[in-house]
């Protein structure tokens, strides 16, 4: 399937390299998700795709659409901001849930609960509007 936008050569090289690099970084992250041995090790590699991979592909998309329409089109910034904001939130919630589950069943993989900490995640629900 040979189909691609008709860009000038410099833009084509730049977009092709960025897309390929972002996809390769995402694949490396997914392979890490597949191969590492422990949940707390496995939670790290997918962020490779959600930061560098997403950033590269979004920049490539911005360059492509901007040169195609010959005016700046930066609506991909929305996805960039959204993914950058939400990835830490979801992964921290997930790691906390996994830690809670491991501790509640007395697993020896995770360290002991030091000084029975107070629920430190009570704060973020406070609204600032």
């Amino acid at each position: 399937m040979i189909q691609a936008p008709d860009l000038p050569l410099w833009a084509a090289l730049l977009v092709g390299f960025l897309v390929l690099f972002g996809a390769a970084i995402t694949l490396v992250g997914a392979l890490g998700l597949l191969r590492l041995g422990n949940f707390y090790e496995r939670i790290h590699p997918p962020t490779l795709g959600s930061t560098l991979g997403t950033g590269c592909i979004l920049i490539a998309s911005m360059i492509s659409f901007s040169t195609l329409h010959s005016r700046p089109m930066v609506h991909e910034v929305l996805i960039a901001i959204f993914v950058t904001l939400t990835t830490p939130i979801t992964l921290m919630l997930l790691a906390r849930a996994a830690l809670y589950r491991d501790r509640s069943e007395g697993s020896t993989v995770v360290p002991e609960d030091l000084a029975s900490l107070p629920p430190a995640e009570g704060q973020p629900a406070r609204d600032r509007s």
Partner: protein
Amino acid sequence: MSILILALAITAAQILLALAMGCATFRMLRGPRAQDRVLGMDALYLSGMLLLLTYGIQTGRTLFFEGALVIGLLGFAGTVALAKFLMRGEVIE
């Protein structure tokens, strides 16, 4: 010439992203515990979003961008809901 380079690069990137989706799907189906499955789903929707963006670059239409934005929003909501469920499900048990 530039169309050929770009088409080859985008097709290769789509194959790589599909492989990434395969790895995430494997972790989602085979994950030893529930949190591994949720993590696999997170990686899966992210790779799917990136795949949709490459289709958007390939066809030059902004329709795919909106689809990717919707996938990002709904995937975030789903992962947060599942993490909350993992946190509270055992409290209720």
